């Protein structure tokens, strides 16, 4: 079979290159958006998922550490410790603050003060001294800080004892100090944001017992607590990402449609000849569909290659950026192909109106 669709496409190399580049840019944009979304979700939930806490106790109505406030008496930890099945319980205080880095105000830090004895809520197994901080690695890179350097929070100097990973929620990064340092920064004694519990035996049973003993607080098992974070992030961020992705996809589709439409106009004589020779409307539809899919597939491949090529550069240029590519992001390709197929509708009206008798005009 003569590859007429491809040959006609390659007759307009400039248009082909621009269109493939447009599709590639669109696919890159979509991949970028979804990778950022996955990265933000992972960054915001990994601490909750991996810190080894079985039950999170919060103020009634509070179900996440990012976007809700929670105030509890720190002494509640002692009360929780007495409940059957609780192995350890300790307070965690959360402060949202900027830091002073070499006289320059940083972006916002989510600072968590954990109990240095139980280490519940600590990002890693570390014996933190007073005046020390474990700082998110990307935050440290952004401000060119390293272990041993000092930064100031609320006029209190903190020496960086270690760096943590998986503690970057894109818009803010996490830092970890001792509970007493956290309380000092907050300026109020005896206040915790959460009570963290490690259980013995069945977690569900322990959670039920805590709820019975403390009906005025919210008791979240860690799986539920993680899910709430996912939902919270999705409800706030996902619609925006999807709107951006939809705009991107629409622009990509329009680029392909415009190319096919202008190609139908430019190659009108060729299409008239094909019609005169007996090629029907269906043949011409298949032809532009092939062209559209060829351009889309080529654009997808280039988009993926481009995105993977520039990812290390992006991460170097924007230290707090988190890009997480997931297998489900491959769904972009069938969607792109569907949009490409839809774009093939654009030139149909032009093709239908081409009159085969045009071939007799000089």
């Amino acid at each position: 079979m003569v590859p007429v669709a491809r040959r006609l496409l390659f007759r307009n190399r400039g248009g082909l290159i621009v269109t493939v580049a447009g599709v590639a840019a669109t696919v890159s944009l979509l991949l970028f958006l979804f990778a950022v979304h996955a990265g933000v979700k992972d960054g915001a939930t990994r601490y909750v998922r991996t810190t080894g806490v079985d039950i999170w106790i919060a103020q009634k109505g509070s179900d996440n550490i990012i976007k809700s406030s929670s105030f509890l008496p720190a002494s509640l930890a002692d009360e929780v410790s007495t409940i059957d099945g609780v192995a350890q319980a300790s307070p965690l205080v959360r402060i949202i603050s900027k830091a002073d880095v070499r006289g320059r105000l940083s972006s916002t830090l989510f600072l968590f003060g954990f109990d240095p004895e139980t280490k519940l809520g600590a990002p890693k197994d570390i014996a933190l001294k007073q005046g020390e901080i474990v700082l998110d690695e990307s935050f440290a890179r952004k401000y060119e800080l390293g272990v041993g350097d000092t930064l100031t929070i609320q006029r209190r100097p903190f020496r960086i004892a270690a760096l943590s990973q998986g503690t970057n929620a894109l818009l803010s990064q996490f830092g970890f100090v001792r509970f007493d340092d956290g309380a000092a920064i907050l300026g109020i004694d005896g206040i915790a944001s959460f009570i963290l519990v490690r259980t013995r035996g069945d977690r569900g049973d322990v959670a039920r017992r805590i709820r019975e003993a403390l009906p005025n607080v919210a008791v979240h098992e860690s799986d539920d607590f993680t899910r709430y974070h996912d939902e919270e992030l999705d409800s706030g961020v996902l619609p925006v990402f999807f709107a951006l992705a939809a705009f991107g996809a629409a622009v990509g589709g329009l680029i392909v449609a415009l190319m096919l439409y202008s190609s139908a106009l430019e190659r009108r004589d060729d299409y008239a000849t094909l019609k005169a020779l007996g090629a029907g409307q269906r043949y011409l539809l298949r032809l532009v569909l092939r062209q559209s899919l060829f351009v889309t597939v080529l654009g997808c491949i280039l988009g993926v290659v481009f995105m993977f090529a520039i990812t290390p550069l992006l991460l170097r240029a924007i230290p707090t950026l988190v890009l997480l590519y997931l297998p489900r992001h491959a769904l972009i390709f069938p969607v792109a192909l569907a949009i490409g197929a839809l774009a093939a509708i654009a030139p149909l009206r032009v093709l239908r109106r081409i009159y085969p008798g045009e071939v007799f005009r000089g």
Partner: protein
Amino acid sequence: MIAARSLVKEYDAGVVFRAVDDVSLDVARGEVVLIIGPNGSGKTTLLSMLGGLVRPTSGSVVVEGRALDEMPERELETFRLRRVGFVFQTFRLLDALSVRENVQLVIDLAGEKRNADALLDRVGALHLANRNTRVLSGGEKQRVAIARALANDPAILLADEPTGSLDSSAGEAAIALLCDAARNDGRAVVIVSHDTRIAHHADRVVRITDGRVVE
């Protein structure tokens, strides 16, 4: 093979213009008919109706016993694809394709398994098979166009001013190929031209003026 009866074609561009006026024409298998007339006399419109590209306002065209005016559009496309070969004054080769591909395209469209090279060999253009049509001379292009017109093994071959863009020797060669398609293959060949020098090649000459056959 071709029987056209009382063909009329009118165009309405504000004022009704009759391009072909009551033309009847028969072309037998193996016959070469030359339709001659000045520019604007309606000969190309007549050719378009014979090939099923244009529907007549009234009258009928019957090819191999099938009335073209009664065929729905898709059937007419299939008819053109399988039974009609066209040769155009400006060749109308697809410049995105090679010479071989231009001929192979029609074979593919017709769903046949023929070899484009055999046709190119027949018209003396096999050596051009891999070339792009843009680099060919007018005579070479017309040879390729004739090979393409024969690619679907048509019953009728319709040529519009086939010598119009050629010098005299290339024109003679093109006409010889068309006559060969009639006499050796038994196809009905209709040539439209205002070039009276090729009249001696035809079995019959039909003169047309102002849309009417004058002799």
